[in-house]
């Protein structure tokens, strides 16, 4: 608002400039509050529904629960065995994140630091792979995984999740590595480190915020994935969190209470990550879409 104040002050009498600043601020606040209400209401509704007594949800709908209960969470965990699904999701997402971070940092470093034939081609391959949608790949991938006898296993799921994790991680890491000054590495190598040593001891620590952001994006992508899991996983014991919730909505009467409890539980890991690492994520996201 200081910009606006400066502009108007030069062209109009001082008191009306003050009024306009004040009015602008009020308008900004009103818009912000209305938008926030629209953004937050679905989240509020999800949480409140998960805390309502199951029979209240449809029979006596209300914006505020008549009584709070953790019954839905008990049903979800004790009767539906949702913790198994959360553990499966954690195994898959963490493994995908570690593998993607390791291989992608090697590849990104190579493409940023060295000049060689096919480097440009590799860069294109990364981008094309990044933009190739799962909706095209899920049918052939299910055939390939069946041939490899990896269908219906978490290992198979980890492997197919690399289709989006590797390109995303490599693409994002390239822009982080570019910002590490080459001189630092050269100095370290003069001091006796090998190339690989320079990568591990100099480049990676200096890119730590970038690595954190990429880890979160990769984890999030794997945590949220539904289509490939739906196609590949057939047995109940191997279901991930989104898959388990998906199967809760295939019945005629939807168990909204446990379903929303599951939605809340599935959101917790991502919300924790988001509030810890918001700053990194915003930088990572924008660096990933457009550099500069």
């Amino acid at each position: 608002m200081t910009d606006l104040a400066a502009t108007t002050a030069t062209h109009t009498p001082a008191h009306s400039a003050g009024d306009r600043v004040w009015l602008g601020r009020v308008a900004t606040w009103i818009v912000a509050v209305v938008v926030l209400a629209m953004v937050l209401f679905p989240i509020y509704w999800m949480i409140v529904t998960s805390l309502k007594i199951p029979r209240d949800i449809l029979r006596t709908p209300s914006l505020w629960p008549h009584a709070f209960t953790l019954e839905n969470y008990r049903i979800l965990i004790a009767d539906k065995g949702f913790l198994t699904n959360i553990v499966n999701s954690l195994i898959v997402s963490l493994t995908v994140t570690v593998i993607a971070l390791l291989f992608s940092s090697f590849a990104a470093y190579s493409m940023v630091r060295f000049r060689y034939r096919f480097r440009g081609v590799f860069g294109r391959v990364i981008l094309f792979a990044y933009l190739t949608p799962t909706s095209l790949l899920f049918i052939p991938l299910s055939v390939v995984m069946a041939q490899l006898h990896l269908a219906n296993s978490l290992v198979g799921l980890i492997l197919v999740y690399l289709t989006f994790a590797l390109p995303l991680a490599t693409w994002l890491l390239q822009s982080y590595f570019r910002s590490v000054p080459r001189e630092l590495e050269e100095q370290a190598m003069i001091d006796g480190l090998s190339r690989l040593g320079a990568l591990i001891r100099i480049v990676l620590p200096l890119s730590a915020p970038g690595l954190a952001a990429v880890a979160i994006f990769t984890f999030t992508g794997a945590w949220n994935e539904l289509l490939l899991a739906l196609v590949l996983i057939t047995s109940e014991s191997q279901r991930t969190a989104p898959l388990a919730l998906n199967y809760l909505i295939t019945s005629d009467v939807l168990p909204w209470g446990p379903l929303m409890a599951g939605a809340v539980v599935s959101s917790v890991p991502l919300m924790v990550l988001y509030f810890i690492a918001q700053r990194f994520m915003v930088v990572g996201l924008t660096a990933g879409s457009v550099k500069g």
Partner: protein
Amino acid sequence: MTDATIAPPRRRSYRLAAFAYFLVLPVMVLLVGLVGYPFVYAIFISFTDAVVGNAGKWIGFANFAYLAQNPSFLSSIANTVILVLVSDGLKLLIGLGLALLVNQQFRGRGIVRSFLMLPWAMPGFVAFLAWRLLYQPIGGGLSLALQALGLNLGIVDWLGQRPTALPSVIVATVWRGFPFWFISILAALQAIPKELYEAARVDGANRWQQFWSVTFPGIRLVVIVTALLSSIWTANSFENVWLLTQGGPSDATMVFPVLAYFGMQTQRIGEAASVSVATLPVLIILVLLATTLMHRDED
């Protein structure tokens, strides 16, 4: 610096190149195997009558000829086009508006920004399950909230009737997707040097002229790239429609990824693959545009 002259240059650069290839190799091998091969394979089987467990035989364009008269496919294409154009248009307007809002100095803007990002930070499947509940005719939060605001529409089955089904899917998709636009545009706005605005003011430009001469050029590239990326993702999104309506009622919200998934459940994978492959020409154009813009300042 002396070792450069001691080591034979050719040998040294050869070893460096080998090292560079070695580093990039695992990612390339995995991507060729897990993206490249399936990509080609999808195109190949779309020209066959393959079923699960049987490679089938080459049938030329028969699958595509069948699609061209399949009402589900035709509505899935129409719905996908509407979904992409309307929801990405809305995401642009909302994202730009909110980015301009949050780009101002006011108390609490950090909190506003954090909360605006929530729909994007939470899992997509959670978002769409929450919206499915909101849209329930009885016990859904939307009708209750509208009632509380004085808008009593009675019992509306938002997702269950033709006129409201697709708009409802679009609203949920916009809710989930606008933060990506918002944060991308906001970052671009913050990268515009303040001096440019001062210079424009010195030249006598009003707010509107400042927007077109300074703000707009500053965010144009970001908006274009975001539009391309978002269109690709929206066009190929599965979980929004799947979790809200599964394409119903009677194909009113059918989109091609859901249709391909249904096709796969019939075991006729050749025919199912042709659904996605049929959309490839458009996808390839979007991807080429996006990669060219994203790759541009790299070398």
